[in-house]
């Protein structure tokens, strides 16, 4: 118990403490000074560009979480309840995207969404558009890419929750006169709420800290917090502002994940 805790402290708490301290240090001409300041936070909260990066990050996180829950739930339900002898194969197929690197999957979307990509070619061929549309770089493209990349995680989480529901409860509801739809909404859905919340939190957390997909589908002109942090840390070499951004991201993500977990737990307990 003590060893894992020490490891956690060493590799999580300590770097985060260093990050926190760097965020309060003034940086001049790319160099950290010894002067304490709140200027880094002031800089970030007074620039619309970074306020938008912050807002965009959470729009992406919430959108990806919701899309994955909406798409993932029916799939998870089907995979848990199907009696097909191909059940194992179907589950493997649903999780197959995890076998490819997220960069490869994202470049798949790049080929589809770019101005001279498959989507534009198709719409032009169908006569739906006259001029090519810039689907990317955009927030929408980031959401699509991440929702696709993270769907298997949500499916797995919801499947775990659905598998834990005693089938006799559904039989009991139906024996008392409830039809399949009412049984689903009154019994299955509330009981699977912890899985829904878990799936949402998982995809939300990964989405708000994702770097590769926003970097490829959003590019340098459509920043989210992860790409902005990377830019400050390794391209502009301004570690103070990079650290302040990272602190904001970690604090907000933990707070929102905590709220979502509480809501999920409360709904599950009802």
């Amino acid at each position: 118990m003590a060893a894992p805790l020490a490891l956690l402290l060493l590799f999580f708490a300590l770097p985060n403490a260093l990050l926190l301290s760097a965020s309060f240090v003034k940086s001049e001409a790319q160099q950290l000074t010894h002067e304490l300041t709140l200027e880094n936070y002031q800089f970030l909260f007074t620039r619309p560009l970074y306020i938008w990066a912050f807002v965009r990050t959470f729009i992406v996180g919430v959108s990806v979480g919701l899309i994955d829950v909406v798409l993932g739930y029916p799939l998870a339900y089907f995979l848990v309840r199907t009696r097909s002898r191909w059940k194992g194969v179907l589950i493997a197929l649903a999780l197959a995207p995890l076998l490819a690197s997220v960069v490869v999957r994202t470049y798949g979307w790049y080929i589809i969404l770019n101005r001279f990509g498959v989507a534009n070619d198709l719409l032009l061929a169908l006569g739906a558009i006259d001029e090519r549309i810039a689907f990317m770089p955009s927030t929408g493209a980031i959401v699509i890419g991440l929702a696709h990349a993270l769907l298997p995680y949500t499916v797995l989480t919801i499947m775990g929750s659905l598998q834990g529901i005693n089938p006799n409860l559904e039989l009991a509801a139906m024996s008392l006169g409830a039809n399949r739809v009412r049984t689903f909404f009154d019994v299955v859905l509330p009981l699977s709420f912890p899985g829904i919340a878990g799936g949402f939190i998982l995809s939300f957390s990964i989405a708000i800290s994702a770097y590769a997909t926003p970097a490829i589908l959003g590019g340098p002109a459509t920043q989210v917090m992860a790409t902005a942090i990377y830019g400050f840390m390794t391209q502009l070499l301004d570690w103070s502002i990079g650290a302040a951004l990272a602190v904001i991201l970690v604090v907000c993500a933990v707070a929102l994940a905590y709220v979502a977990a509480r809501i999920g737990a409360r709904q599950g307990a009802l």
Partner: protein
Amino acid sequence: MAQTLRRRLLKGAAAAVAAPYVITARSQETLIVNTQGGEYQELVERVVIRPFEKKFGVKVIHDATGTASQDYAKIRASRGAPGFDVAGLLTPPEVILGVKEGMLEKLSEREVPNLRHLWDKTWQVIPPGSGAPHTLQYAALVYHKEKLERPRSWDDYWEPQKKYGDKVKGHVIQYNPANLLSVYALIHAAQLGKGGVDNMEPAWQRLKAQKSYVGVVVTGSAEAVPHFENGQVWISPYWSARSGYYIDRGLPFEMIIPEEGVIGLFDVACVPVGAKNKKLAYEFLNWRLDPAIQREWALAYFSSPTRPGVELPAKFAASQLTTQEQIARTQFPDSDVIGARRKDWTLKWQEIMG
């Protein structure tokens, strides 16, 4: 008894597994050199690293990862001990910062004798003795020769609609100022409007006007190559060395020096203060400046030597900076100023392009 035998067997097996590494480490000196991947990796290994290994009887481990700023971030994060002995591909802004922060070894002609042969202008660009500039290139203008007429001015990139009309819409590329290529192109844009590093306003006006014609936005220079290859980008500022390399391999592009001139860039090899094998690192830096290696490297990478007197074929030399006059005419903006203002420029660029 059985336990003792098992221990002996295990010790024997461990020694057998470790032996090749122990023997190699003891018998051959090792140098770790960081540069970058892509086409650069194969070239630098073939032209510079393998001949160095052969001549000095040493082993070079080539760490082909990261860009100049990422590599400097590693040096800074490790307080000068990034795990490589030579930072082989820094640019002037990182070198200047490295000297200020005390992360790079100060060099003299005693350690690196070939430093005395560099172009006179070298030490105006980076602090004296801060590194070994081994490659000289410039930010050229490249265009798709099957799609566009030959451009003449930087204005043909910044205001492409004037020369090419609407057909160029979506075929112009922009680079994030985190890439020095973008900074240099912005400086040219500022100069077109009588501005410069001290007044970038004309550059922002041109960026706003150009925005609706931009189809691709990237950060790294290497990221642009697929867009050149698939015909999406028709006009771009681009490093002369890489341009020459890809054009030689059949890319339907041509590289020009616009009438306003170009901005030059030195690629610099430095030794981090915490390098383990400094002696061999200095030998490597000296090797990079050797006239024969300078010639081979220039021809392989389509770049210019960083010292006078390197004989190159006339046709090749025509697109390179090889004379004192050409070097004198080439702009080398103050990298200290660029370093200090890059954050604000990036912010402004992002506000316009976002």
